[in-house]
């Protein structure tokens, strides 16, 4: 069920927003996770999970966050999750990458199922090293399960890898590379200086 905010709620949200710049992720958590009880008390409909993502659902985002963190891990600089790589991909899936919606919907579910069937744990619940081992299998095209008989897990990995790198290194205007983190990492001045 969709939840539509009342005018009063929207006014309240705008006050919050003006006091603090939220990332899409923080905002999603704010209105869905119950951190802001004040909002929730205004409408019981908020008990239903509202996805503020454009195409992906919370489950898919959670897997994608973990994958993004594997492709570009955190070290002395933030990794793919902090850089909002998942937001980049979600945004593109409703614009330039519409044609990949079906790859993601089918692929993410099948990926999670392959992992869960083997270990009774979700991908994101595994240790970093275990997750890496899963992705290495996927990169080699060795994921098992019904879905992967018809689809190449190797190709899906390559798609994810490319999209994560685009989200991390592309312009923030596409939804990733939060605060130009990758440019800072490479020691490039930003904005591109016109002198």
């Amino acid at each position, binding site marked *: 069920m969709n939840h539509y905010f009342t005018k009063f709620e929207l006014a309240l949200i705008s006050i919050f927003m003006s006091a603090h710049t939220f990332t899409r992720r923080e905002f999603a958590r704010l209105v869905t996770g119950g951190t802001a009880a004040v909002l929730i008390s205004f409408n019981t409909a908020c008990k239903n999970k509202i996805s503020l993502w454009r195409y992906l659902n919370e489950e898919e985002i959670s897997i994608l966050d973990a994958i993004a963190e594997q492709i570009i891990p955190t070290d002395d600089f933030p990794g793919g999750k902090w850089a909002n790589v998942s937001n980049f991909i979600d945004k593109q899936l409703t614009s330039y990458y519409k044609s990949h919606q079906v790859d993601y919907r089918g692929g993410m579910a099948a990926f999670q199922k392959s992992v869960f069937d083997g270990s009774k744990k979700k991908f994101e619940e595994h240790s970093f090293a275990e997750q*890496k081992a899963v992705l290495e299998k996927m990169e080699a095209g060795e994921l098992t399960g019904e879905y992967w008989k018809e689809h190449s897990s190797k190709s899906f990995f390559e798609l994810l890898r490319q999209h994560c790198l685009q989200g991390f290194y592309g312009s923030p205007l596409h939804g990733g590379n939060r605060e130009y983190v990758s440019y800072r*990492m490479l020691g490039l001045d930003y904005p591109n200086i016109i002198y």
Partner: protein
Amino acid sequence: MANKHVNAIVIGAGAGGGVVAKELSMAGLTVVLMERGRWQTFDEHGDDELTSQRTFPLKCGYGPDNGRNWRMAPDGIGGWTRVFPNDWRYGNNAACVGSGTVSYGAMAWRFQPVDFQLKTKYGSIPGTTLEDWPLTYDELEPYYEKAEYELGVAGDPTTDPFVPPRKHPYPMPAFSYNREGMILEKAARNLGLHPFPIPMLRNSVPYNGRPACIHMRTCVGYACPVNAKAGTQNTVIPVALKTGNCELRINCMVSEILIDEKGRAKGIKYFDSENKLHEQTSDLVVLSASATETARLLLNSKSKLFPNGAGNNQGWVGKNLQDHAYTGAYGLFEGEVYDDVGPGACIAVNDFNHRFPDIVGGGVLCNEFIRMPYQFAGIRPNGSRMWGIEHKAFQKKNFKRHIAIHGPVQEMPTFDRKVEIDPAVKDFWGIPVLRIGGMRHENDINVAHFLSDKAEKWLKEAGAISTWKSIPGRESGASQHQAGTCRMGNDPKTSVTNKFGQLHEIDNVFIADGSLHVNNGGYNPVLTILSLGFWVGNHIASQWKGTKMK
């Protein structure tokens, strides 16, 4: 309302078409310049790498758009698959006013005199259609000079003993070397090579009312924010429009050249910005839509006298597709070599063109344009892990500690490397689309090995602590350097136009773009396309005075 009859229709407002439109309208002809794209500016795109014309995973910012344009490419298992402009296999050239000259790297090479006489130099090469141009370097030289002066080229050939002969210096002084360039210059001299600054269609000093370069790191693949880079959109096209004789019609897709019962062109059919079909009549038609789209237009213009497409009764339209098999090497250095002075490419050597008895052809070697962060994520020695902590460590360590040296291999033309019309697939407007196919000749790969070896030696001499080569495969396409599909020649049986770009079979249809190239040289081709624009335009204008093309 019917369009008013004009003297000339020029199709495609890129390098060739922009120049021809200017030459004809200055000579007093009424001209309609047709362009499928629109005006583009830096501000629309900024420094966005993902929609640049260099790396374009999301879209080609300067066109064409994925929504209405597609082609067919080999699917790897014997069939064909649909590809879109932001797929490498499509072989796109920008679709906007100025076309590639808005977002190019702007290297301003003249071909070597011998490039016009390859068959004379090398004889017949098996498996190729190698031929001399019907045009000599000396005939084209004044038009090279015209292109250099009217658009504006900065360069200094004094340290290049292999420079093609020229009567006058470049109109602007050369750019100085960036940090990479200085490192490479010393190394080249140690090796006995002859380094020199790359000539550029970019202002080193204010020129023609446009300011000097501000050294953006995003240059190739992007418009210039201050118009220091010369394209036809900020030079010859505005001059053409100012004559009052030239109308630029943008967002218009030409679908067909109309041929009358006597076998002459009477005009074109095109779709306007609202996809309505129109006719435009004219006394003559000039095609300058790029080597792929010019051939497509001819092949799609079928009539009683030309059942296989206009000017194609000998079956040579679309054949001899050439490009450049880019090759070279990368080197990693101990210390930083990056100084953020764009566009990066600044130094070249001409030592490896036509000077080695065992090598057919060759190519110029240059340091590469700046590799932006996403592009750099794909640059690794073979066998490297392309993700994870290894990926990130490599990015951090080497972004400012690597140099790339690349060069365009002069490809051999073959009859089987070609564009043709797909029998079934049509684009958004219902116009039959192209198939692009064929393999590179083995000589191209031999030369690539030769050149990449030289590039690697240069990097090692410069102090690289590790190096690796980049060698192209035989799978081919048609990048922005596409050429050769309507080549000029003296024999109507083995060429499409005469030496003036005039179709052998239809005397009021001309071509002025890379399609004419009998061979594509070992250099970026744009200055040659621009000069052919002046050459063809000048010929039409001089003929017009006597005959009016009647």
